[in-house]
């Protein structure tokens, strides 16, 4: 009987994949599948064989109410810590925009490169990646996009290439973003578990290299695309973002990297870093010269805008942990069905994921911010891999494929409307990039993250 339930679970998984690809609301999708899996897995214990139940104590060693509570209460509560980071990161992003630090960095970069498109693209990609190690949310991407994209286009770079180069650089920076790190880490373990798995450790072993690989691949590909394309000049009215903004003082331009640097160097609190760097930015850029009440209002407004920036993500983030939890109850059934065919060696996982990278598109079964969360639930429960290894395996399709290359990513969708690039023209550039960068990143994973000791397992 457990085999049939396993098949039913698998069918609902494909149903979810289809639902995600159709672009429906992720929060509702995950809520529905969580309920379906709860019914199937917990109800399934009534009809399963005694052998099966005996070998899977997770399904029997506690009461039904406790299990339900674990799914619908403890799991989302556990993600509260992650969520708080997201909100503060969004606030900091708003501060960097309000103070003009982010836009000044971009303008100074262009003033170094000038009209040589490749030099300027390379410099802009590096700076964009650095900025997005600290900024979070669609608001900042759009705010930087309305500066960077017109600049590239006015240098004669075709719009699709400009958009591609920018979006991939944003994604590159996210590999070191402490907010995203905390967010994805929570897919694998509780925030309090495995204290050694810090951003600093991860960055030294994998993160820096991942950012560099991503930026280099995006830049080199932009160069190749540029060589084979014709320059274009557009007459367009820019209604936003072009307005003259005062330059931020040069000594404030390092502030974007402060939270990340503190986190990596001293494992200093991320939120503490955001607060310190954020208020330094506001004071040094003369944004706090009003009355006390006015200053409070500004800080408050930036917080509000920041939280709104991330709102589309919040509902999804708070439903997802329920799903992650229920996946652990569903996994014994999956093991019955998929156990024999699931990859058990790290090399096979890397090769398989590299081949299947395309399934990270359209919220498919490879991306954590899509139905890849279900894949992870299945994979991590039928075979045993170290946490850092699995983290990297899933981070690649999530960041490079979904966030950087897919038109379902909110800010990519915005960029298409802004630059008037056709979806297919964007995907023509982004998919090759996703595969090339993705394969290199899996090689990196095999080199630095495979064969880890027992302390990295749970």
């Amino acid at each position, binding site marked *: 009987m457990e085999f049939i339930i396993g098949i039913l679970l698998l069918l609902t998984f494909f149903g979810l994949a289809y639902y995600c690809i159709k672009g429906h609301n992720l*929060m509702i999708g995950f809520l529905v599948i969580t309920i379906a899996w709860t019914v199937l897995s917990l109800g399934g214990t009534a009809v399963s064989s005694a052998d099966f139940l005996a070998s899977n104590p997770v399904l029997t060693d506690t009461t039904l109410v406790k299990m339900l509570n674990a799914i619908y209460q403890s799991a989302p509560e556990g993600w509260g810590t992650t969520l708080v980071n997201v909100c503060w990161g969004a606030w900091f992003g708003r501060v960097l925009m309000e103070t003009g630090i982010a836009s000044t960095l971009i303008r100074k970069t262009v003033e170094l490169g000038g009209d040589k498109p490749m030099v300027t693209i390379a410099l802009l990609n590096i700076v964009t990646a650095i900025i997005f190690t600290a900024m979070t949310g669609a608001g900042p991407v759009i705010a930087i996009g309305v500066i960077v994209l017109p600049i590239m286009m006015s240098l*004669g770079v075709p719009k699709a290439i400009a958009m591609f180069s920018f979006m991939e650089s944003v994604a590159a920076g996210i590999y070191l973003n402490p907010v995203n790190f905390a967010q994805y880490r929570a897919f694998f373990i509780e925030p309090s578990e495995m204290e050694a798995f810090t951003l600093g450790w991860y960055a030294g072993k994998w993160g820096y290299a991942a950012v560099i690989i991503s930026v280099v691949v995006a830049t080199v590909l932009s160069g190749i695309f540029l060589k084979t394309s014709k320059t274009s*000049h557009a*007459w*367009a009215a820019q*209604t*936003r*973002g072009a307005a003259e903004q005062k330059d931020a003082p040069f000594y404030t331009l390092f502030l974007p990297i402060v939270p990340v640097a503190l986190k990596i160097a001293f494992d200093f609190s991320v939120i503490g870093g955001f607060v310190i760097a954020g208020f330094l930015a506001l004071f040094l850029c003369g944004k706090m010269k009003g009355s006390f009440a006015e200053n409070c209002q500004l800080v408050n407004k930036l917080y509000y805008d920041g939280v709104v920036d991330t709102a589309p993500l919040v509902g999804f983030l708070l439903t997802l942990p329920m799903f992650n939890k229920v996946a652990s109850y569903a996994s014994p059934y999956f093991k019955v069905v998929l156990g024999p065919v699931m990859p058990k060696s790290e090399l096979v996982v890397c090769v398989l994921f590299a081949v299947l990278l395309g399934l990270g598109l359209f919220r498919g079964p490879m991306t954590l911010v899509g139905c890849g969360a279900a894949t992870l639930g299945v994979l991590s429960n039928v075979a045993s891999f170290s946490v850092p290894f699995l983290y990297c395996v899933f981070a690649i399709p999530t960041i490079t494929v979904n966030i950087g290359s897919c038109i379902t990513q909110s800010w990519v969708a*915005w960029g298409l409307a802004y630059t008037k690039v056709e979806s297919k023209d964007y995907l023509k550039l982004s998919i090759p990039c996703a595969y090339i960068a993705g394969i290199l990143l899996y090689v990196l994973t095999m080199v630095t993250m495979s064969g880890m000791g027992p302390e990295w397992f749970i």
Partner: protein
Amino acid sequence: MTKERFKELMQPIADGLFGKQKPYHMQQGTPPVVRPVGMIVEDLCTISDDEWAKYAFSREPLNGKFTDEQRVELTRKAMACGREYAERVVQEQGVRDPEKLAEKLGMKVDYPRMPQSTDRVLFAEFREPNKIHIYMDGVDKGEVLFAEPGVRHALTAQLDIKKLLLGHELFHWVEEKYRKEIWTRTYRLRLWEVGPVHNDSTVMVLGEIAAMAFTQALNNLRYSPYVMDAYLVYGYSPEAASALYEEMMTFAGRTPRLPEELEPA
């Protein structure tokens, strides 16, 4: 805080939680006061060549490298360059009409209809070596606005939007053809130097300013084609166009008028 205001503030959050996934639109600050389109074009058509310098340069990536005096001086030179080449091309080809000129020069012109977003409205595009797209969506909307009071008077019967856009893009072809000698391409700005190493760059906006002067000459207009930036955007978003109007007037050192200042006709 009233209940309505509270609801309004919570709406984006509620949409984020329960709404369908949709492309993201950033909310903006207070929307500008919407002016009648007739007022916008009437004021903008009186802005002089020199006064357009700051607006034109505000779209230049290297804008931070110039002083206001330099901006005005370079704008004058770029406009002179555009006019010079307009006369030269007219002489060589024996026609002034941009459409006939495009035909004689062997350009491939097409007129796609493409909906636009209001953040950035695309009017026309030149692609090397000889392709020009004139986006008709904006042109059509602009032609509809001719009926609004004061518009025809300010823009004059001389204006043919399609030909105006075409003339601008033709200049980019001219610029490419004479790239070795034309001033907009030979002018170089030194960005930095460290000992013997330095980086000199062309200034992209000079080509745009010259293209405006070029098409202005071909079309025999009394006002700068930059007026189209606000005018054609008006068809999509009177708010965005009014914001552009404020921006242009301020850059020109003038005070933007408010709708109530309109004299009764």
